[in-house]
């Protein structure tokens, strides 16, 4: 069976990552910034590009399911909602403002040579390892705070959810045409080789749909950070890693024909490594090559102490938030929202609150 070959998965996701790294770097498509700027600078300019990415993904996911290439019945990778997901969203929202990026933008900014984002990267890995220690206790809490019922609107009211999705797409289309007439899509930028954010949103949606078509799962990446951390910790404390429950469980299931391919955060080569790990590597390499091509790669030294501290703490919070909510902003905003998952709606609500709190905190930290 072709799909049983892990290298097929690896190179498919590596290719998606290389394209994403190119587009994200050139457009500086920072989802954290898009949400943060609404609260910090009252600037909603880039929010419409995020909205475009979400609605276009919804449209493509709908199309894939209408054609019959994926089914409406189960939003794979999304469990029923838990109030812990709201807390995860809040923590993630504060973290992304302090870190100045999310799990995607950290990669392409780090690939350009910015050491502050190396600190965010290390923070995300440290936060993932901290979560692994707290996992048994947090699992109990998650179950206590779990909501009864199905995982999403598509399961609760399938026909109504389907109709509402198409209506939303139609309504958004009218809005998009209005913005086009008002010339609100194009952003003026003096940076070399700039890719307009609307085009980046189209790429993101198309590549996400490609991943969904391939695996039945929208793009995700945060477990790859946990896996990297597990590999590193395993070098130093193998006995300890071996007895951690979080590193021994599977969190990713891909149906490939008759067989199920599993993956988790543990230090082994499995589906998380071949999909999320390949995506992480692809984004890093794609952004790095573009930074070289545009003659922009350079390491300028360490950031001011307060910024460095905020960046690392933000990274830790990104990881904790993502783990508490069973996914990051990419998985929930560009995957769960278009699939109408309750878990993602809860995360998004928490994320907005977190971004608001973060926007209140950041100037006090940076400008003091």
């Amino acid at each position: 069976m072709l799909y049983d070959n892990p290298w097929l998965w690896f190179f498919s996701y590596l290719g998606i990552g290389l394209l994403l790294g190119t587009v994200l770097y050139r457009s500086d498509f920072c989802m954290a910034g898009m949400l943060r700027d609404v609260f910090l600078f009252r600037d909603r300019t880039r929010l419409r590009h995020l909205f475009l990415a979400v609605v276009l993904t919804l449209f493509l996911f709908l199309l894939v399911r209408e054609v019959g290439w994926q089914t409406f019945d189960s939003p794979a990778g999304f469990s029923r909602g838990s109030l812990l997901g709201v807390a995860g969203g809040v923590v993630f929202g504060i973290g992304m403002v302090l870190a100045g990026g999310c799990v995607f933008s950290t990669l392409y900014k780090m690939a350009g040579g910015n050491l502050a984002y190396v600190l965010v990267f290390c923070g995300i890995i440290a936060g993932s390892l901290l979560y692994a220690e707290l996992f048994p206790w947090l699992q109990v809490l998650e179950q206590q705070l779990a909501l009864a019922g199905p995982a999403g609107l598509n399961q609760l009211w399938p026909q109504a959810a389907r109709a509402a999705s198409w209506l939303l797409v139609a309504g958004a289309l009218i809005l998009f045409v209005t913005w086009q007439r008002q010339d609100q899509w194009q952003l003026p930028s003096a940076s070399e080789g700039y890719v307009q954010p609307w085009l980046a949103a189209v790429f993101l949606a198309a590549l996400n749909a490609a991943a969904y078509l391939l695996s039945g799962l929208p793009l995700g990446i945060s477990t790859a950070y946990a896996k990297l951390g597990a590999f590193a910790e395993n070098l130093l404390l193998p006995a300890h890693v071996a007895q951690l429950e979080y590193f021994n469980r599977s969190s990713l299931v891909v149906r490939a024909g008759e067989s199920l391919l599993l993956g988790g955060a543990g230090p082994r080569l499995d589906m998380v490594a071949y999909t999320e790990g390949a995506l992480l590597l692809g984004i890093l390499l794609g952004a790095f090559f573009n930074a070289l091509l545009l003659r922009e790669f350079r390491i300028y030294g360490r950031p001011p102490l307060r910024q460095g501290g905020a960046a690392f703490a933000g990274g830790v919070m990104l990881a904790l938030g993502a783990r508490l909510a069973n996914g990051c902003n990419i998985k929930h905003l560009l995957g769960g929202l278009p699939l109408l998952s309750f878990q993602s709606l809860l995360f998004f609500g928490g994320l907005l609150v977190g971004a608001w709190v973060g926007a209140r905190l950041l100037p006090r930290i940076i400008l003091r």
Partner: protein
Amino acid sequence: MESREIVETIDLNILGQVCPACLLVVLKALNDHEERLRSGKTRLVVRTDHRDSTRTVPESARKMGYEAQVRKVDTYYEISIGRKDG
């Protein structure tokens, strides 16, 4: 006798800083040096490697009534902000 106005510059190096600290730091500098910048005898020259700053910094400066120019220098961008003439 020829009279030539001497323009001094305030250098602001924010290379390698975290987003959105870049914009926050520039806005603070614009406020701190407002009198000198508005007089037309001083320009604020910002050095940044943050690509989106080439959009956000000039846009914010223009909204505050300044004139802003961006150029690429070596591996970074230089944004020069000063009084808007006319």
